[in-house]
C-alpha cells in the first residue's frame, strides 16, 4: 500500500466503527453517558440498514429488543416509529415465551434512526472508512481513515458487520463487496491481521427481492397483523398507534422447484467448496433445505413487504447462492410467483469475524485496553443480537473511560447476559442466533418484565432517563399493590359465585377463597374474574398482565429462583485470571487447554466451556476448596 499523508482531524473519547445496529447502540450509549463520541460509517445511506429480512423481533430476539429498551437503548423506540405490521408469537404457550415480531418499513427505519443520531448531543456522525486502529502499549490511541485523517480517542468499538473483507457469491460469480452493493472494508481487515488478530470467515445469505405487481397473491394465504398492537418500547405502552397494517403472505415451494435446485447444486459455491465461511444452520439456504430434508415435498415461503414506499417484496425462506439464471428459473416454480420479476438477486456474503473468546464479558479485548467488539464481527447473526452487544460495548467503553465498575449482565439477569456469555465462552462455529432455549431461566427473563428487571440498572449507569425510571418504579408499585389486594379479596361460596365459576368450567368453591388463589386455576384468568371483584382499580394492560403472570406462575417462578441461586453459587466461585491450569492435576488435557485459552472468570463460566466436563469441574471445585482450607490454615497459624 502507498504511504498516505496523515493529519490530525480531531479528538474523541469513543469512536465507533460502523453504523449498523451494533454501532448505533454503542455510539448512543456512550454519547448519552456524557462522552464525546463519533460514529463513522462507510456510507451514511446505510445507517441502520436492514440488509436481510424486514423484521425485528421473534422468539428470543424480541426479548433482546425489550431488554435494550429497558436499558435505554434505541432499537425498540425506532421500530415503534417505523413498523408496518405487528404480531405476538407463541401466544398459545406461557407468557415467558411470548415473542413480539414486527415488519419494518426499511427505509423509514433507516431515516428515523439517522435522525436520532443526527440530533444526539455529544455525538458526531461522519462518513468515512476507518482503515486502522492505532495502538500504543496495548492500549487504544486513535483511528486512521482512508483519507489520512487521524482521530485521537480513548476507546474504539469495532462493529464492522459483514463489511470486513466482504465477498459476495452468486453462483460461479464472486467479488469483493459489502452488503447490498456497498463497498467492502478490506484495509481494516489487513490492519487487524497485521496486529496478529486471528480472523475467521463466516457467511450469511439473503433471498431475492421481487416486484409486488408480478406476484399472484390469490394463490397465497394472507397473514395479517394482530388486531391489538403491542409496542416494543416500554415508553410506548398504552399508546394508540392507529396504523393500517400491511399483510404478509404464505406460499410454498414445489417439487418442480426442488428438481431445478438439485440439478444445479454443483453450481452453488457452497457445494463446490468455494465458500469457506460457515453459515447459520437455523437460517438455511433453500439448497440446504432441499438437501437436508430431501423427503419434504414442499417448504414454506413468506412474502413480506419491504416498506410502504416501495414495491419490493422480500421472499423469506428462499435465500440462495445459485447462479442468477437458476434463481430466476426456480423462483418461478414457487406457487404464485409464476410470473415473478426480480428486482435484486439472492446472494451469499462471506466476511471476517474474530473468535469472541478473546473478549471479556464487557466485550473489551482481554489484552488490548479499550478496544471493544460488537455485532457480527463477534460471530453473532441478527440485528437484535448486534444491537444488544453494541449497547453493552458502548456502556462499558464509557464506564472504562470514566474509571467506573464494568457493567456485566449474567445469564440469570437477561437474555443479553446469555448472549454475551455464550459468545465469549463457547467457540461458536456458526453465526450465533438468540433462542429462548439458550436461556436457562426464561420464566423469569420474560419480555414483558424486562423493564422491571433492568431499568434500574440502566438508570444507575446514567443511560436511562428520569422519566423512564419513574414510570418503571410506578409500575412496580402498582403491581405489588394489586397483588396484595387480590390476596385480601375473599370470594364466598354463594350460589351466585359458584354459578359464575361453573359457567367458566371451573369447579365450585366450598369455602371462602381469595381471588389470588382463584386466579391460579388454569382455566381462569385475571380479566375473567372482573365480575367477582367490584372494587378492582383500573390498570394498564401491561400491569394486569404482570399481575396475572406473577400469580399463575408463582410456583414455577419460585422453582426457577432456586435454580438461579444454585447457578449463582458457581458463578460466585471466582477463578484467578492468572491461574495456570496445567498445574491442576486431574484435569483432562482438553480442559487444561481450553481453560488456559479462555481463562474463565468463575467456575460457572468454566462449566459452560465445551470440552470441560463435569468431572473437570469437580476437580476445579476440589482444587479451590483445598486452596481455601490451606489459606484458612495459614491465617490461623
Amino acid at each position, binding site marked *: 500500500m502507498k504511504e498516505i499523508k496523515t493529519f490530525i482531524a480531531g479528538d474523541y473519547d469513543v469512536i465507533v466503527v460502523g453504523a449498523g445496529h451494533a454501532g448505533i447502540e454503542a455510539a448512543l450509549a456512550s454519547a448519552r453517558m456524557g462522552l464525546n463520541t463519533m460514529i463513522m460509517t462507510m456510507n451514511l445511506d446505510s445507517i441502520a440498514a436492514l440488509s436481510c429480512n424486514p423484521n425485528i423481533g421473534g*422468539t*428470543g430476539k424480541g426479548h433482546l429488543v425489550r431488554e435494550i429498551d429497558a436499558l435505554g437503548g434505541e432499537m425498540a423506540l425506532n421500530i415503534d416509529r417505523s413498523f408496518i405490521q405487528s404480531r405476538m*408469537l*407463541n401466544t398459545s*404457550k*406461557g*407468557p*415467558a*415465551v411470548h*415473542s413480539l415480531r414486527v415488519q419494518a418499513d426499511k427505509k423509514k427505519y433507516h431515516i428515523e434512526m439517522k435522525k436520532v443520531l443526527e440530533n444526539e448531543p455529544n455525538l458526531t456522525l461522519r462518513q468515512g472508512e476507518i482503515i486502522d486502529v492505532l495502538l500504543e502499549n496495548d492500549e487504544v490511541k486513535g483511528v486512521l481513515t482512508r483519507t489520512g485523517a487521524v482521530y485521537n480517542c480513548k476507546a474504539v468499538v469495532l462493529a464492522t458487520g459483514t463489511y470486513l473483507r466482504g465477498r459476495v457469491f452468486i453462483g460461479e460469480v464472486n467479488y469483493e463487496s459489502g452488503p447490498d452493493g456497498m463497498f467492502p472494508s478490506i484495509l481494516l481487515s489487513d490492519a487487524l491481521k497485521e496486529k496478529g488478530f486471528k480472523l475467521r470467515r463466516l457467511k450469511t445469505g439473503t433471498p431475492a427481492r421481487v416486484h409486488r405487481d408480478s406476484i399472484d397473491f390469490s394463490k397465497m394465504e394472507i397473514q395479517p397483523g394482530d388486531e391489538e398492537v403491542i409496542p416494543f418500547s416500554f415508553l410506548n405502552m398504552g399508546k394508540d398507534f392507529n396504523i393500517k397494517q400491511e399483510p404478509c403472505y404464505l406460499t410454498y415451494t414445489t417439487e418442480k422447484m426442488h428438481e431445478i435446485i438439485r440439478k444445479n447444486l454443483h453450481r452453488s459455491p457452497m457445494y463446490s467448496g468455494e465458500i469457506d465461511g460457515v453459515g447459520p444452520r*437455523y437460517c438455511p439456504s433453500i439448497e440446504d433445505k432441499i438437501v437436508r430434508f430431501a423427503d419434504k415435498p414442499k*417448504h*414454506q415461503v*413468506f412474502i413480506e413487504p419491504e416498506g410502504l414506499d416501495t414495491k419490493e417484496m422480500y421472499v423469506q425462506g428462499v435465500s440462495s447462492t445459485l447462479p442468477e439464471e437458476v434463481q430466476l428459473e426456480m423462483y418461478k416454480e414457487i406457487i404464485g410467483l409464476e410470473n415473478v420479476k426480480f428486482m435484486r438477486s439472492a446472494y451469499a456474503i462471506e466476511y471476517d469475524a474474530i473468535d469472541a473468546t478473546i473478549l471479556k464479558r464487557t466485550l473489551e479485548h482481554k489484552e488490548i485496553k479499550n478496544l471493544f467488539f460488537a455485532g457480527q464481527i463477534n460471530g453473532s447473526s441478527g440485528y437484535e443480537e448486534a444491537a444488544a452487544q453494541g449497547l453493552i460495548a458502548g456502556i462499558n467503553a464509557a464506564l472504562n473511560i470514566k474509571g467506573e465498575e464494568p457493567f456485566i449482565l449474567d445469564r440469570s439477569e437477561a437474555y443479553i447476559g446469555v448472549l454475551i456469555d455464550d459468545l465469549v465462552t463457547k467457540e461458536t462455529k456458526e453465526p450465533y442466533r438468540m*433462542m*429462548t*432455549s439458550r436461556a436457562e431461566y*426464561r*420464566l423469569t427473563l420474560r419480555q414483558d418484565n424486562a423493564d422491571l428487571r433492568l431499568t434500574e440498572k440502566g438508570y444507575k449507569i446514567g443511560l436511562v432517563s428520569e422519566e423512564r425510571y419513574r414510570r418503571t418504579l410506578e409500575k412496580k408499585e402498582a403491581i405489588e399493590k394489586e397483588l396484595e389486594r387480590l390476596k385480601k379479596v375473599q370470594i364466598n361460596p354463594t350460589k351466585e359465585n359458584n354459578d359464575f365459576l361453573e359457567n367458566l368450567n371451573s369447579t365450585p368453591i366450598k369455602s371462602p377463597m381469595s381471588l389470588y388463589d382463584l386466579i391460579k386455576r*388454569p382455566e381462569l384468568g385475571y380479566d375473567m374474574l372482573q365480575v367477582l371483584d367490584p372494587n378492582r382499580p383500573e390498570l394498564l394492560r401491561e400491569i394486569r398482565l404482570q399481575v396475572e403472570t406473577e400469580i399463575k*406462575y408463582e410456583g*414455577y417462578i419460585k*422453582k*426457577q429462583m432456586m*435454580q438461579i441461586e*444454585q447457578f449463582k*453459587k*458457581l458463578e460466585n466461585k471466582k477463578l484467578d485470571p492468572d491461574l495456570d491450569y496445567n498445574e491442576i*492435576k*486431574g*484435569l*483432562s488435557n482438553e480442559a487444561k487447554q481450553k481453560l488456559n485459552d479462555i481463562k474463565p472468570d468463575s467456575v460457572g463460566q468454566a*462449566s459452560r466451556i465445551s470440552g470441560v466436563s*463435569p*468431572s*473437570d*469441574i*469437580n*476437580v476445579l*471445585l*476440589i482444587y479451590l*476448596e*483445598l486452596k481455601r*482450607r490451606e489459606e484458612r490454615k495459614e491465617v490461623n497459624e
Partner: protein
Amino acid sequence: MTIAAISTAVGEAGIGIVRISGSKSLEIANKVFKGNKVEELNVSHSKRLVYGYIIDRENHKLVDEVLISFMKGPYTYTREDMVEIYCHGGIISVRKVLDLVLKNGARLAEPGEFTKRAFLNGRLDLSQAEAVIDMIRAKTDKSFETSLNQLEGSISNKIKEIRDILLEMIAHVEVSIDFPDEDIEEVTYDELEESAIKVKDEIEKLLLTADRGKILRDGLNTVILGKPNVGKSSLLNAILRENRAIVTDIPGTTRDIIEEYVNIDGIPLRIIDTAGIRDTEDIVEQIGVNKAKETVEKADLIIAVFDISRELTDEDYEIIDIVKDKKSIILLNKIDLPNKFTKSYFQSIIGDKQIIETSIASKVGVDILEKSIKDLFYSGEVEIYSDAVITNVRHKNQLEKALENINQALDDIKNYVPIDCIEVDLKNCWENLGEISGDTIGEDILDKIFAEFCIGK
C-alpha cells in the same frame, strides 16, 4: 505425594500385595527391588511382571522373593504411575516390604485413598467411586456384587437411559417454542404424557430396588422381641452358630443394645437384641418396653418370640400390640413342652402374620425361620433389577427428588399448563438424575466428596 499400602487382607494367605501410587513409584521401587535378570525397572517394563528380590540396601538384607509390576500412568487404576509388589503372604513378609517402601519415600495411604485418587484423576465417576467405597465396606458377597455392578456403570447406564428420554422431551418443547413459524410438528400433550409416564416408571423401578439396596449395604435391621425367658438368647445363639457372624459391635453409648451381623445366604442381617427386655427381671418393666418400642420403630423386621408353654401375660399382649402393624414373623417357642394355647388361637389375635412353631433348644423350626426371612427379602418386584440396585442414600434422595419433579410435570401435562412451565420440572428432574452420575454439578456433590473421601483432612 506417593502413597503405599497393603492391598490384600491381612492374615494367612499365599500372597500379599503392596501397592504404590504416585510420581515416585518407579524411583521407590528401584530403591527396594533387585531383579534376577533385570538390573533396573524402567518404562519398557510397564505392565510386565518382573521376578526378583526386595532388598533392604541399608542393612544389606534380603526381605522377600517377589514378582513386581510397574504400571506407567495414565492407564492405571489411579491414573498415576503405580507399582505392585507380590510378596509371600502372611503378616510378617508383607509388613516388612511395606515398611521398606515407606522408609524409601512413600507415605502410608489413608483408607480409600487409591480410589480417591482414581476419582480425582477422572478415572472413576462419582457413582463408581462410591461403589468402590461400598465394595471395600461390603458385608456379604451379595452386597459386594451389587457394588461391583455399580462400578461397572450399571447405575450410570440406567440413569443415562432415563435422562435421554427427558432430554428428548425437553428438545421437543424447545423446538416448539423457538420455531413457531416453521412448519414443524409441535409437541403434543399426549406425547409428553407418554414419555413422562415412562420416566416416572423407570424412576419408581429404581427406587424399588433402594430398600433392598440399603439392606445389602447396611444389613436388614432385625429386632428380636419377647418377654424374659421365652428363648430370645437361644434364638440369637442358634442363628449365630449356624451362620457366620460378621461383626460384633457394642456401641459404648448404650450398654443395653447389642448388635450382631449375620449372613443368611447372602442377606446381611443386623440383629438388634434389646437387652432392656432380656434382663428386665429386676429393672422397671416400663423402661424395657419403651426402649423396645423405640428400637422397633427403626426395624425392617421383627421376630417376636412367645412361649407356648406358658399362659399369655400382659407383657405378651403389649408385644402383640407393638408388632401388629410391623413387618414381623411370630415364633411360638417351646412346642416340645405342653402347650397352654393353640396356634390358631394366636393367629386370631395377631391377624395376618406368619407364625412358626419352634423349639429352639432342640433346633426345630430355625431353618423355617431363615427361609422365611429370605422369602421376605426376595418377594415382590425387587428382583427385576438385579444389576442396577440403588444402595446409596444420596442416590435414593436424588431419585426421590426426581420422582417428585416428574410427578409435578405429569400433573401439569394433564392440566394443559403451558409447555415452558412444564419444562421447568422436566429440567429439574434431568438435573436430579445427573447428580447421581455426576453429570450435573451441584454444591452438595462437593460436600459429599469431602465427607466420603476425607480430602484435605
